[in-house]
């Protein structure tokens, strides 16, 4: 078993979650130890404010020995990160939060989706700071000084009616528009790629990078509201197939009818998952090889116009 603490707050207890599934634990430890330069025994003394890293405790002696770890190890993120892969590994740790898991410290935020989204967002911010600091050592940017609270906002959004014929009836439309087009509800006939429209397409297929591309195109993380002038503001979800071998991303969009629609590549738009069940929750739907749930986002009109 693993116990993971996100080292992010300075006043409140940090969110902590546990992972019990043996195969998941081993896969996580493999990812964590693949680059030992990312790990330290304890948190760096100059950690600062904001998202500093993750403390990972291996709760089984045998497991710790198998992976050559002590009882606890520390993965720094942001400006103290040991390498560019730190945010990616951190994202994997965040994805292990089981919403509704009661095992959390008193006064710590509940383990739920808003927390997961919040940590992912903060991780992206830290990664951006890290890359800024690597790009220009003279241009030091301080992490946000104020301690952020878990999101508790309500955003007004729009939900489009499920209209598969718009995507499926013309073979040229079907073949040349992908899941990102569908999530954006915008036909470009270019197999749109996150970030291509804003000139900074993703550079690898990870939650962090594809998110970065989509945000660059104009999407927002969930709970980061758009004004009315940006209608339609769709709720979408991003998932990633991490490999090995098969590496790709995929998007879903919430429909007016309450279910979620999606369009796998050049195939038909649909509202059912790999088990042929109507998708009521993209987190629990059968997503085949797209096993990593990256989070929820809002699309908007500017983003529709920007995608390519």
């Amino acid at each position, binding site marked *: 078993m693993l116990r993971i603490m996100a080292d992010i707050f300075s006043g409140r207890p940090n969110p902590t979650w546990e992972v019990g599934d043996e195969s998941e634990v081993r896969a996580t430890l493999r990812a964590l130890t693949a680059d030992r330069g990312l790990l330290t025994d304890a948190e760096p003394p100059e950690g600062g404010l904001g998202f500093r890293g993750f403390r990972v405790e291996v709760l089984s002696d045998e497991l710790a020995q198998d992976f050559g770890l002590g009882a606890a190890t520390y993965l720094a993120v942001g400006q103290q990160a040991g390498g560019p892969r730190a945010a990616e590994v951190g994202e994997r740790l965040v994805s292990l939060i089981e919403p509704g898991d009661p095992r959390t410290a008193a006064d710590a935020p509940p383990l739920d989706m808003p927390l997961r989204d919040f940590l992912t967002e903060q991780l992206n911010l830290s990664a951006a700071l890290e890359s800024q600091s690597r790009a220009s050592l003279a241009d030091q940017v301080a992490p946000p000084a104020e301690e952020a609270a878990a999101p508790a906002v309500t955003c007004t959004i729009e939900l489009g009616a499920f209209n598969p014929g718009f995507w499926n009836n013309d073979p040229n439309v079907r073949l040349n528009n992908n899941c990102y087009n569908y999530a954006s509800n915008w036909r470009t006939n270019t197999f749109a790629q996150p970030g291509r429209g804003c000139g900074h397409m993703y550079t690898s297929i990870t939650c962090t990078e594809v998110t970065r591309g989509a945000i660059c195109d104009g999407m927002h993380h969930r709970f980061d509201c758009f004004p009315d002038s940006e209608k339609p503001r769709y709720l979408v979800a991003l998932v990633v197939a991490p490999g090995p071998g*098969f590496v790709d991303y995929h998007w879903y969009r919430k429909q007016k009818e309450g279910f979620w629609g999606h369009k796998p590549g050049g195939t038909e738009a649909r509202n059912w998952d790999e088990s042929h069940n109507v998708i009521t929750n993209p987190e629990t739907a059968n997503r085949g090889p797209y096993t990593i749930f990256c989070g929820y986002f809002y699309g908007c009109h500017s983003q529709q116009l920007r995608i390519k």
Partner: protein
Amino acid sequence: MDVEVDLYSGRPNPRFRLEPAAAAVLMHRLAVLPPLPGRATPRATLGYRGLRINAGVTESTVTEIVVSGGAVFVRDRDGSEHVLKDVDRQLERWLVEAGAGQLDPDEVAVLDQDLKS
């Protein structure tokens, strides 16, 4: 002829080219496939689905061929469509072997794994 590997949802699909000699072999193989009785549709799963071949400008009447999960969907220039049986996915296997050198080894491994299942 251009062959698109229908693999991804977000990323652009990988493609490879069949040189004229291989294209001729493909058309010969196609000509001897038996019809597939009943209704069939190409695979529509997340992940590897099949191969789509654009016949391009040739003397053949065929314009597009989709090879997917034991069936071959052929569309002619006059718009007519017919479905053939790809016994033991032999044609699909042959195509993957023909294009393997032009594809990423990881992608070839995904296709090989699917063809074994």
